[in-house]
């Protein structure tokens, strides 16, 4: 992959979104190969520090996918994540990171197409934004 | 719970801290915002300095070496130390103080050496020599228009670092010299000069810098490779009417320097190599000169903890921490600050001055 291609870290919940990515894969739906997926047991497992760490390590965009509201395998994990996600959106601009570089979505295991579409959209968005230029440099 | 003002013993800046004690034990520190030097701000070392008091390896009673180091009592250990000191000629005895000792302790140690006739005395001073030129004060740092720095002052002496930041906010130009590719102090400087040695800087770049120096400039010397280099920085300052502050390591380096001869690592090695008995007060010399110390016949140490030097010693006397005694420290800008006793020394430990006096008494030396 060329240097200019956006690097995306995708945290996907084991029960839904990861399944969605699998469904997209099995059905040979094409989506940008720029996303590196990290499987987590629940979107409720994600905390803002993980998103920050991803950006620090050079991600141009961070995606989080969980089960649809009401479908959480652990009852309320995605509610918790939703509250944290809002907080992440508030926090990122404080460090000069456009909140559009961060996206979260509810995708079920059967929604391969939604996964494909979301990745394409996010990829295009990031492509448009260009690679993340952080002003803090060591 | 009680809060008491004291001076931080972690470095030579001389910050004020509040020590928190509870049931005669040190439990923490609290910002001392009224103190002009640091205004309640402390570095990590400063905030955690109470750990020296509660340290697990604190020595509670005298130790002597049999096959290994074992607990002893004051009588036995003092008698052993004294009989050994008596058995050597003064020329065979080396006495080493520390920049962590109070001014009063340095004085007593010096008196003891003089009375004994031992001329081999000093304290480990790294690469800093004795000097008697006038130094700037901390407000000078803040008010300077140009600051030349050697070493990573922001990290190593953060509360002087703060004054550099304040100067920078007032528009001062900062130039830093150091070895690593990048340092925090370098990052906030207008220019960072990476050099292989201070010598190289003095030879190659100093002349250029000299043109920038004037009466509103300051030179902060926290890193030297050799004693002689300080004089060259002093000359740079003198020629341009700039101020200069050498930043030494220990809380009383500047005070000890006026009483005991400062010794570099090489000088220490040379001195120790010629000695049969060594009497070390307050310094963990073995951490840097372990092998050299092993060659000494008999080693007497006064230490607060069972450190590497204590482990090598034949007699170890347990001594008091800075808040367990009363005395004074002189900070880098020549400001002598009193420290008051807040806690009793633990176990049978005593302050360094008292221990020196006890040895003197047994030797029938009048101090």
């Amino acid at each position, binding site marked *: 992959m060329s240097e200019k291609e956006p690097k995306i870290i995708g945290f996907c919940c084991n029960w839904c979104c990861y399944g969605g990515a699998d469904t997209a894969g099995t059905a040979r739906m094409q989506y940008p190969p720029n996303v590196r997926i990290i499987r987590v047991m629940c979107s409720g497992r994600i905390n*803002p*520090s993980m998103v*920050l*760490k991803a*950006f*620090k390590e050079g991600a141009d965009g961070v995606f989080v996918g969980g089960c649809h509201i009401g479908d959480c395998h652990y*009852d*309320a994990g995605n*509610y*918790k994540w939703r*509250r*944290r996600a809002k*907080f*992440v959106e*508030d*926090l990122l601009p*404080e*460090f*000069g990171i456009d909140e559009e570089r961060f996206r979260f979505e509810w995708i079920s295991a059967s929604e391969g197409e939604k996964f494909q579409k979301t990745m394409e959209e996010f990829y295009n968005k990031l492509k448009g934004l260009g690679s993340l230029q952080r*002003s*803090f*440099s*060591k | *719970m*009680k*809060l008491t*003002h004291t001076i931080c013993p972690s470095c030579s800046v001389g910050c004020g801290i509040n020590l*928190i004690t*509870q049931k005669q034990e040190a*439990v*923490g520190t*609290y*910002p001392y*915002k*009224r103190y*002009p030097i640091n*205004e*309640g*701000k*402390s*570095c*990590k070392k400063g*905030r955690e300095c109470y750990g020296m008091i509660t340290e697990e390896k604190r020595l509670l009673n005298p130790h002597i070496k049999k096959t290994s180091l074992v607990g002893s009592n004051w009588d036995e250990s003092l008698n052993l130390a004294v009989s050994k000191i008596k058995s050597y000629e003064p020329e065979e005895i080396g006495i080493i103080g520390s920049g962590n000792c109070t001014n009063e302790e340095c004085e007593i140690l010096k008196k003891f050496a003089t009375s004994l006739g031992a001329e081999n005395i000093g304290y480990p001073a790294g690469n800093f020599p004795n000097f008697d030129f006038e130094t700037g004060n901390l407000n000078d740092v803040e008010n300077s228009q140009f600051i030349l720095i050697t070493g*990573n002052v*922001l*990290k190593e002496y*953060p*509360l002087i*670092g*703060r004054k550099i*930041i*304040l100067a920078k*906010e007032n528009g001062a130009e900062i130039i830093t010299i150091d070895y*690593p590719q*990048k*340092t*925090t102090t*370098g*990052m*906030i400087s207008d220019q960072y000069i990476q050099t292989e040695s201070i010598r190289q800087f003095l030879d190659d770049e100093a002349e250029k810098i000299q043109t920038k120096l004037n009466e509103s400039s300051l030179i902060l010397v926290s890193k030297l490779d050799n004693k002689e280099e300080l004089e060259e920085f002093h000359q740079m300052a003198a020629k341009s009417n700039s101020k200069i502050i050498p930043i030494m390591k220990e809380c009383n380096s500047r005070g000890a320097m006026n009483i005991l001869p400062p010794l570099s690592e090489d000088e220490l090695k040379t001195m120790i190599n010629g000695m049969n008995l060594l009497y070390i007060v307050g310094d963990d010399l073995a951490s840097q000169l372990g092998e050299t110390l092993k060659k000494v016949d008999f080693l007497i140490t006064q230490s607060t903890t069972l450190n590497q030097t204590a482990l090598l010693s034949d007699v170890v006397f347990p001594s008091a921490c800075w808040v367990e005694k009363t005395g004074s420290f002189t900070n880098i800008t020549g400001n002598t600050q009193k420290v008051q006793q807040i806690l009793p020394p633990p176990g049978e430990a005593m302050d360094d001055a008292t221990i020196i006096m006890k040895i003197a008494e047994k030797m029938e030396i009048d101090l």
Partner: protein
Amino acid sequence: MDSNYLLARAKDEDLLKKGECGGAVSSIFQYLLDSNLVDGVLNLSHGEDIYDGVPTLIEDSKDLVQTCGSLHCAPTMFGDLIRKYLQDMNLAVAVKPCDAMAIKELEKRHQIDSDKIYKVGLNCGGTVLPITALKMIELFYEVDPDDVVKEEIDKGKFIIELADGSHKSIEIDELEEKGYGRRVNCQRCELMIPRNADIACGNWGAEPGWTFIEIVTEKGREIVENAHKNGYLEVKTPPEKLVNIREKIEGVMIKMARKFQDKYLEEEYPSLENWDEYWNRCIECYACRDVCPLCYCRECDLEREYYSDSGETAPDPLTFQGVRLSHMSFSCVNCGQCEDVCPMEIPVARIYHRMQKKYREQTGFIAGMSEELPPLFSPEKE
């Protein structure tokens, strides 16, 4: 005592004379100690001078006189002192609004036992850093700070009293425009009357020589009533006029605070470039974390290998302040301690206060005031 408002003063002659506004607060402490309802009282006493406020634990009511009088140049924080060292005792504590806010957040997190603590609130219009006070007294009042015997903040002025009984005063606005006066976080603070304590005491709306007390909780009512019944406190009902005056002062100050919030958190908020310059100074000394009353974790994420940057230069702000912000900024009470103790002069409290405000707008959660925990980690399905 039907009303929540009353005027009170000490019966004890010494406290009446030496205490602030008739010594009502000291008398309540005296009552609590004498009746063994508490084992200790945490308050401030003078250290070397009036600019040196030292947190002091009083265990004998005879010593209360040490803590008489108010200090405005003592920006202390009691929350973490109580959590760390005074957990085991039944305690009464004199709290500024920010102390009360910190204590409230710690109570919700079971770090301070609310059953063991009486919070006697003190109205606060802000504090001045001691060294700032010394400098400004020399510079603007042209007085040797050592000659000042008392200082006071009243009616928008910082007033000093000299040994000969004379006063000098300057508008705080004027001092603050020149970078002196109250700490900037105090300028932004909108809680002047600590209604998050058991009672709130102060001189606003009080007659001279009396303390105006607002009773907030049942516990607060009990101690005031009993201090009165047991002969420690003289009380009377304030005329409505005074209640209104007090309300008016509070209203004006809140309005001013909001203006300062706009100024410091929006209009003059540091640009990203400024922040980068600030972050580049960071020496990773953890002073901000260690002083923060809300950072009480035994094991801190910041010291985990995967977030820490080893090296000679400043840590990446995303995984240093960023991680800390994501852990507690929603609960930040804007006490300003982090900024006070930062050796590198980074205006840390600003970003925390700004994030708390954003969070407040989204969720309605007000750190230090709301009864519940911040909703971020709540199990509710909402």
